Each structure stands twice: as structure tokens, then as C-alpha cells.
């Protein structure tokens, strides 16, 4: 209990309290707290990234070894991972005269090439797929079922049309205050702002209250199960 629960709770309390207090105490040494704790945080975060990568490797290796479903694809993942590691950590593909580590962004480095020609097309296209899904979802689900749904739909349509030149063209004959770009601007500056603001205030309160529970050790759920 001491090692698995009490010490972590004590760490949260100490770190949380110090971070909170330094907002109110400008005097030395409190003005130094953030400089270093944030650096530490960064370093620990890197280990979390490494952990994610190793977890992935472990899982995919298991898949290959147990010849699970689609294991050849797991092989693709592993090879992709290792190849990128080679470019990231070995002298392969590092331009001459550039120190290992500075090569990531250097002109002519293979790591940089991989970023622009492998990583970029993949992640950009993944997001671009969503364009199609957004279209089909709105086509299917934007129905005038009731007052709420109708408001959602109308606001959505006005925004969509009002923000592009075609929308401006379509309503150019109307008086200025009825033109789509004007109406669209008004919707997002007034009623939308009101709704968004209420959500923000609510979420803000939720965050403050959860942070408080974390710091005071009332909420310990981040510790995971009691194994």
C-alpha cells in the first residue's frame, strides 16, 4: 500500500500544491519551480513515448510469433518501425558533416525524406478520409426531426455556405444583413458564442474540481486497478 498507493498520492499532493502555490508567490524560490518541474515533465514524457513504441513492438512481435490473424501485416509494422529507427538513430542517411541527432531536419537527410514522403502522406490522408465521412454522416443524419435538430442543421448549412465564395455569390442580391457571409458571421459571433461559452465554463469547473480532487488525494483512479 505504502509503495503502490500512498507514495504516489503524496507525490501528486506535493507537486500539485507547489505548482498551484507558485501562481500566487512570485518570490524566490517559487519563481524557479516551474522552470525545472516543467523540464522534468518533458523528460518523463519522452519516456512515455518510448514506452508506447516498445509496447507496440512487443504486441506486434507476439502477433508474428503466435501467427495470429493478419500476422504478415504485423510484420509490415515491425519493419516500418525498425527502418524508421535506423534513419533516426544510425548514421545511415545522415548527410556528411552533420552530427547525429541534428540530422532529423537537415537538408538531404533520409529521416527528413521519410517524414515528407511516408509520414506526411499517411497522416494527411487519414484525416482527409474524414471529409468523406463528414459528408455521408451529414447527408444521413441531418434531418429536421425536431426543433433542436433543425437548429443544428440550419446553423451547419449557413456556416458551410457562408464561409465560401460560392455562398457569398448566391446571396449577393440580398440586402447586406441577409447575405450568407453576414448571417454566418453573426451566428458564430452571437448564439454560437453563447453556447460555446457555457460549455467552456462548465468544463472549466469540471477541470478545477477534478484537479482539486487529484491534488488532495480524493481521486486516486489514475493509479489504475489495485493489483
Amino acid at each position, binding site marked *: 500500500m505504502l509503495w503502490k498507493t500512498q507514495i504516489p498520492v503524496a507525490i501528486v499532493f506535493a507537486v500539485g500544491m507547489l505548482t498551484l502555490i507558485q501562481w500566487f508567490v512570485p518570490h524566490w524560490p517559487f519563481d524557479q519551480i516551474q522552470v525545472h518541474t516543467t523540464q522534468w515533465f518533458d523528460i518523463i514524457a519522452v519516456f512515455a513515448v518510448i514506452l508506447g513504441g516498445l509496447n507496440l513492438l512487443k504486441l506486434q512481435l507476439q502477433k508474428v510469433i503466435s501467427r495470429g490473424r493478419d500476422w504478415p501485416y504485423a510484420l509490415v509494422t515491425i519493419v516500418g518501425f525498425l527502418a524508421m529507427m535506423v534513419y533516426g538513430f544510425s548514421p545511415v542517411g545522415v548527410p556528411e558533416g552533420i552530427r547525429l541527432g541534428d540530422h532529423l*531536419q537537415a537538408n538531404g537527410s533520409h529521416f527528413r525524406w521519410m*517524414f515528407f514522403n511516408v509520414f506526411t502522406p499517411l497522416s494527411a490522408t487519414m484525416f482527409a478520409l474524414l471529409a468523406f465521412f463528414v459528408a455521408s454522416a451529414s447527408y444521413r443524419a441531418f434531418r429536421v426531426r425536431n426543433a433542436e435538430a433543425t437548429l443544428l442543421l440550419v446553423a451547419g448549412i449557413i456556416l458551410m455556405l457562408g464561409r465560401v465564395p460560392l455562398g*457569398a455569390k448566391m446571396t449577393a442580391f440580398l440586402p447586406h444583413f441577409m447575405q450568407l*457571409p453576414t448571417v454566418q458571421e453573426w451566428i458564430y*459571433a452571437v448564439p454560437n*458564442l453563447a453556447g460555446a461559452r457555457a460549455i467552456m465554463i462548465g468544463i472549466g469547473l469540471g477541470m478545477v474540481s477534478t484537479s482539486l480532487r487529484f491534488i488532495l488525494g480524493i481521486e486516486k483512479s489514475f493509479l489504475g486497478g489495485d493489483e
Partner: protein
Amino acid sequence: MAGNNSFLVKMGQLDRRLVFVVIGIAVFLPLKFPIGLAVVTTPTTQDVFNAVDSIPEGSTVLVSFEYGPSTRPEIEPMAITLLRQLFNEKQKVVAMALWPDGQFMSTRVLERIADKEYGLKWGVDYVNLGYRPGQEAVIKGIAKDLRANYNSDVRNNPVEDLPIMDGIYTVKDFDFIFSLSAGYPGTVEWVLYAADPYGIPMSTGVTAIQVNEVIPYVKGGQIKGILAGMSGAAEYENLVKAGDATRFMDAQSVAHFLIVLFIILGNISYLVQRRKQTA
């Protein structure tokens, strides 16, 4: 009439792959064969232009790159146009990134604009400090001590040796912050941990999706104007110099129009169906 009605009902139940194909064509054709629709500037874009315009000449501006390859089409045109506006007015630009891929983005854009187009000097007129991990903790960190977080630029020059960084010890020493942001960490964090607490003027360009999260801060006056998505970028280009976003706006227009058309078809079908059921 019955046949007519069932046709209308069917229009609301098209296979989603048909929707996919239509959207695909709607984007592809205008890219290949542009129409050239005019862009109308919205006030929030004008605000950004004015805010950047009113920075006193020779100021040092922090431009933060918080976007990656997946949101590049929206944000990169803004970045290019922003740099043009800043360099036109002889401002100095310090670039940094809260996203690791942001550094690739900034490197690319700076190479193209600062180096090739304007022929400016690294370390004097502009510098790229690159990425540091830690999300908002980086902002908090540079608010206290920039050099503890950034001891050198991406070309490994110590920050002390960079003339542009003379006298810049914390984020407070920048005259203006511009966040090019596609999500977390991004604009909101810059407001929370830098612009608000230290009263530094800032402005932002965000992806369309981010707009609703950020707009309350714009209306609250914490951010001066906002470039909203690709149309925001096109409007901004319109004020400074035409670029990619302007070229892409036709496809954007047509696609939006078709999606709205689909929604209307779906609703006609829905209403016809509902009337049938009640009748």
C-alpha cells in the same frame, strides 16, 4: 405520383459510396479546372491583418507552429502569408513549435519565404528555435526562462550568439505572438499561459475545426482576430498576396455546395416519408 414520391424517398437513401464518389469528383474537377470565385473578407480576418499591421516596425514576433502534415493544407497558406506580411514590415521572426512535426513545417516555410523569397539572414532577421516537448509546460517554461528551454536554435547555434535573441529572456520580451494552431497544444494554451497572464498581444490562425473552441477568446478580446480554416487563409491572402488557399477555394465552394445539396435531398426524402406515414 406514387412513383415520383418513391424516387424522392430513394434520394434520401443513397449508398454512402455514391456520396463518396460525388464528393471526390466535386473536389477534383475545380482543382484541375479553376473557376476563380471572388473571396470576401470577414471582419475577424481583417482584425488579424490589422493587428499584425499595427505592430511597430522592427519588433520581434514569436510565431509558433502547432500543426502537422495532416492539417498542412489549411495552415501552411496562413503561415506563408503571415511571414510575408511580417517581413514586408521589417519585423523579426522567431519561430518555435509545440508540435514536433511543427518544426518540419516551420523549416519548410522559412526556407521558402525567409530564405528564398526575401533573402533574409538567419539569426538576425529570423531564427527557428524548433520544437521542445512538454506541451503547455513549454509555454510555462519560456514564460519564466526562455533560455532554459531553448539554449540553441535548430542549427545548433547557441542562443547567446544570435543577435535576434539579444534581450529576449522570457516570452514577455516578444512584442507579439502568433500561434498557427491545429489543436492541442495550441492557441488556447498560448492564451492561458502566455498572452493572458503577461498581457502580450497575440493573434492566431487555426483549422476550421478549432474555430469554435477558440472563438470565445477572440470575442473576449484575448486574441486579436482569427484566421478560420482555409477560407480564412484565402481571405488573408487576399489582403496580402494570393497563394495556394485562393487557388483551393473553388473546390471548397463546390464541395460545400454539394454537401448542402445532399442534406436537402435527405430532408426532402425524410419529409415525404413522414407524410406518408402520417397519412
